């Protein structure tokens, strides 16, 4: 039982991760795939931050009177990851806009058909 109580944060994250992964591999619309990818990314962030939390700690800003701080190392990694994630999303969305102009569609199977009909 303590396994359930101790690990529930990982299982929530795994559920979100799998939902995002399912959207990426199963849906055909390109924009929805990118949304699924972002959901996946955000769930990984939640995993890291929840692993960095210490019981009874406070935010990692040094102040008089506080003794136990949360681990700042995951925060730094996730900060970088969030910004890199949005940069990748911006590029991916720009690509989707160009694909739409070239193929007149953002559905994956229609684009495949147009590619193979040459």
């Amino acid at each position: 039982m303590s396994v359930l109580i101790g690990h529930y944060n990982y299982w929530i994250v795994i559920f979100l991760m799998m939902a995002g992964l399912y959207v990426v591999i199963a849906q055909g619309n390109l924009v929805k795939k990118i949304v699924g990818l972002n959901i996946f990314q955000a769930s990984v962030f939640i995993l890291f931050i929840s692993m960095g939390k210490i019981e009874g700690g406070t935010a990692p800003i040094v102040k008089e009177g506080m003794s136990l701080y949360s681990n700042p190392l995951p925060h730094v990694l996730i900060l970088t990851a969030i910004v890199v994630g949005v940069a990748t999303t911006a590029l991916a969305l720009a690509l989707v806009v160009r694909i739409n102009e070239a193929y007149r569609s953002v559905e994956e199977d229609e684009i495949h058909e147009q590619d193979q009909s040459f």
Partner: protein
Amino acid sequence: MRPPIQPHNLVLRIAAKMLIPPILMFALYVQFHGETGPGGGFQAGVIFAAAFILYALVFGIGLARAVATERLLRVLASLGMLLYITVGLASLFSGANFLDYDVLAQERMEGQHLGIFLTELSIGMTVAAVMIMIFFAFAERGVRP
């Protein structure tokens, strides 16, 4: 060139006019207080870009373009990167490792503060300029010729 003031636009325009200066001030506050509280370069850059995007959404792209021209944005973004690398090279040429802030000033603490200040400034500039650049690229694509 100014878009006409229409009645259904009025609430948005007044609200935006009152909100945008505080948003810009907040972005500057977050930028320079990144050391004593949450904040820093990235957040400040994104909030600065958000203020510009709000202005462009309410008042039209033409006016926003007149303030943040293509050249200005490109120069700002490149300047941010150059500043960061210059800080690193400055410490390299002073005898320490790359991006080691200890040797930038007389005392070690002052050197660290100066290095962190310049680095956060460069991050803020680059992030704001790139976000506004991306917004304008997306927005101008949809303008029907």
